[in-house]
Structures are given as C-alpha cells and as structure tokens.
C-alpha cells in the first residue's frame, strides 16, 4: 500500500514531464517512420525514461521530501523499492509503447528477422537495467548533483572504452565477444539485485 502511495506521488509529480515526453515521442514517431529509423525511437524512450528517474530524485531533493517521508509510517526499504519500481515502470513502459510500432514498421520494411529484433530489445533493456542499477545507489548516497557527474562517467567511459575495445578486437574473436552479449540480460538482472541491496544499506544509514 505504501509502495503504491510513493509511486503515485512520483507519477503525480512527474505527470507534466511525462505528458510532454509523450507529445515529443509522437513527433519522433512520425519522423522515424518517414526516415525508417524506428530502432532509434527505443533508444530515445530509454533516455527519456532515465531522465524522468533523475528528475524524480531531483524534485524529492529540492523539497527535502525524504526528511518528511521518514516521519511517515513507511519502511525505509519501501522508499528505496519505490524508486527501483519507478525506474522499471518508466523503462518497460517506454519500450512497450514502441514495441508494436517498431514491429509493424519492421514488417513493412522487413529489414531484420524477428529474432534479431527481439535480441535488440533485450540488449537495450539490459543496458537500461544497468543504468538504473548504477544511478539509484549513487543518487541515494551522494544526491543528484554529484550523481550527475557519475552519469557523465557512465556515458563517457564507454565512449573512451570503445577505443580500448577496438584495440582488443584485433586480438579477440568478434564472435566470441558477441556470445557474451547473450548473457548480458542475466548479468544486468544480477547487477540490479546487487544494486538494490547496496541502496537499501546506504539509505538505512542515511540521516536527514
């Protein structure tokens, strides 16, 4: 019940942003249809979903919501859970909205096989889970200001890292590397669980 209350609060708080996001998506949908780049939409959806999560933390922080929330009969664990569930709803919601759209567009243009398309979804979802898993504990521990720096790191480390990977690719078989990607969803899920336990621990130690 209290988990639902917290989620309701977050969605009421974000409603305006989410509405704006949906209008923007409708616009992107049309453009992507014309240019036949629907997979890009999924990536957009994920970026926006993660932005909403950050916004939720920022709003809470600005109003010192957590100080008040901890005077209410709500378990600290539930407060942490609510943010993970919010992140999952936003990400999964974002993907679900576009799934039929991407599917039909793909059928029409029939670019890739269904299996490839599914693999693409799973890959994107895994990346999103990793993103949630990294950001939430750091937002809880350091707040959104310092947390943002970590997001930059998350974005830029892979960028710099890609040069590094390219160097390795010369020595490692590409197919071997691709086979690891199949395990990514499992890895992401385990990472999410670990992240949750770290967040709960950090949040329980927190003073307001």
């Amino acid at each position, binding site marked *: 019940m209290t988990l639902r209350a917290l989620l309701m*609060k977050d969605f009421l708080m974000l409603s305006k942003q989410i509405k704006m996001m949906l209008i923007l998506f409708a616009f992107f949908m049309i453009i992507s249809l014309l240019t036949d780049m629907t997979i890009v939409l999924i990536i957009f959806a994920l970026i926006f979903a993660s932005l909403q999560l950050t916004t939720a933390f920022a709003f809470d922080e600005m109003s010192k919501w957590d100080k008040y929330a901890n*005077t209410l009969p709500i378990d600290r664990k539930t407060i942490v859970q609510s943010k993970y569930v919010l992140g999952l709803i936003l990400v999964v919601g974002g993907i679900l909205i576009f799934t039929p759209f991407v599917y039909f567009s793909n059928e029409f243009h029939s670019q890739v096989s269904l299996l490839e398309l599914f693999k693409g979804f799973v890959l994107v979802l895994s990346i999103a889970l990793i993103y949630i898993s990294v950001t939430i504990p750091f937002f809880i521990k350091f707040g959104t200001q310092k947390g943002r720096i970590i997001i930059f790191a998350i974005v830029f480390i892979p960028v710099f890292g890609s040069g590094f990977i390219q160097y390795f690719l010369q020595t490692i078989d590409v197919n071997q590397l691709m086979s690891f990607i199949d395990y990514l969803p499992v890895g992401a899920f385990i990472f999410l669980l670990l992240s949750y336990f770290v967040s709960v621990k950090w949040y329980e130690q927190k003073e307001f």
Partner: protein
Amino acid sequence: MTNAIEIQKLRKILHSFQLKDVSFTLPKGTIMGFVGENGAGKTTTIKCILDLLKKDNGKIKLFGKEMHEDELSIKSDIGVVFDDLHFPQNLTAKKISKFMAKVFSNWDDSYYFHLLTKLKVQENKRINELSRGMKMKLSIAIALSHHPKLLILDEPTSGLDPIVRDEILDIFLDFMQEEEHSILFSSHITSDLEKIADYITFIHEGKILFCESKDTLLYDYAIWRGTVEESKDLPSESILAMRENSFGLEILVKRNEVSKAFHLYKPTIEEIMLIYVRGVHDFAGFVDERLSNAQ
C-alpha cells in the same frame, strides 16, 4: 499513565554541535513548549525523536515504546510539521491527499478538505504558488488528517504574521480537546507558547536548562530589578539567574524565597529565556567584583 514522549540522557554529536544528556518527559494530554535560541538544539532533538538522526546514546520512548520496537505503528500515531512544507513543489493540496490516503490507513479525506476550507487553503494551487502562511496551514492540515495522537511541531509559526499564527494556535487547541492528545511544540516565539503550553522545556547550547510547568515559571519565578548594591540583600539561595543591563541588574528569583518587602515583577518566558542565555552565571563572584570595582 504512559507518557507521549520520554527522553533520557539523549546524546548526539554532530560536526560542530552536540546534545548533552537531554532528558525530558511530555505527559499525555499536555502541550510542551520547546524553547531555545536558534542553534540551541531544538531541531536536532526533534530529529532524534523521529529517528531522522541516529542518536549516539540515551533512550527515547514514544507512547512507552522505543522506535525500533514498533516503528510503523508509532509513526502512524504521529503528525509532524516542520518549518517548511517538504512536498514536491509542483503538487497541489488535492493531489497530496490522493497518495497520503494510501500512506495512512485512517486518513480522513473529509476532515482534510474541511480543514483546507476552514484555513482557506486553495486545493488546486501548486505548492510553489502558495504563500508561506498557506504552506504552513497546508502542512498542519496534512499532519492532522490521519487523526494522530501526538503532534511534533518544529517551529511551525516562525516567519508568520500574528493573524495566521493565532489561527494556527486555535487549530492546536482544537486538537487538544481529546484527552489522549499531546503536542511537542518547538519555537522561539515565546508568546505563542505562553498562550498554549502546559510545560516549557528550555534548551541552551545542547543542554536542557529547565523543564517546568508554565504556571510554575510564571507564578513561582519572579524578576527583581535594582542596582548591584541593593542586590546584596537578596537571599543568595533564591537567585536563579542574573543579567546586567543599562538600568542595573535583572535577577530571576524564586518568588517564595524572597521577602515580600522586595518589589518583584511577574516574568514572561522571553525574559526568563534572556536572563538565562545572556546573563552571568557566577552571581556571587559577579556582585563582589562589581562592588570592589565601585570602591
């Protein structure tokens, strides 16, 4: 009879401040004014009571139980008001009720909207569009709408005009109509406390200076005003605190230990607070020094 709040030897060390063995008791059915200057430790104490800060030592009991024993049930019987409304700024009073009804099983929507109407808080206005007075009134309506048994108020009236303050005090007095209800009310606006408090607890530099019933303070304590020379005649055991100002000395005394021949004034809580905080503590030494200087 169990107490609403019972604090024993509470200790909390922060970077540049500490609470030193804070102890006091708030009996059920009473209002306690928690006074002290800014930075005296009022908020730190309240945060420790609510477990927002982890205490380093001591015992805190609410309704006879420690927080860790039954946190959720204790918290569902408390209403808290801070000096600001800590809800996301783009929410409205109406939206707040939607999810608060899911936080408290006994949330009373009709009472909440009744309070909003009574206090003239617009339910569809976003929080960031409300004045400070309106925000505080909303905060109080939220704190009361699950019918708590104990209100913990941290400076709820600071920065508000006298009319809004009076409205708010009336709401608190209404709340006290129930015998079981209690209030811990921290404030440095002592006149508000004089109006409604039964007990006054005075904290200074992280230490409790006294915890007395308001009537004892106002009727058993008295202020004597005069020169250093004249003060020599006051019985030393009657003196509680002393302060020097441009007119001479102001001495807080126990009324019944001073002969009726002395002209005594009824103190206000503010005067008592000022004499304690800004006064001298070594009376005998002070008087001797002044007298020897005069010679």
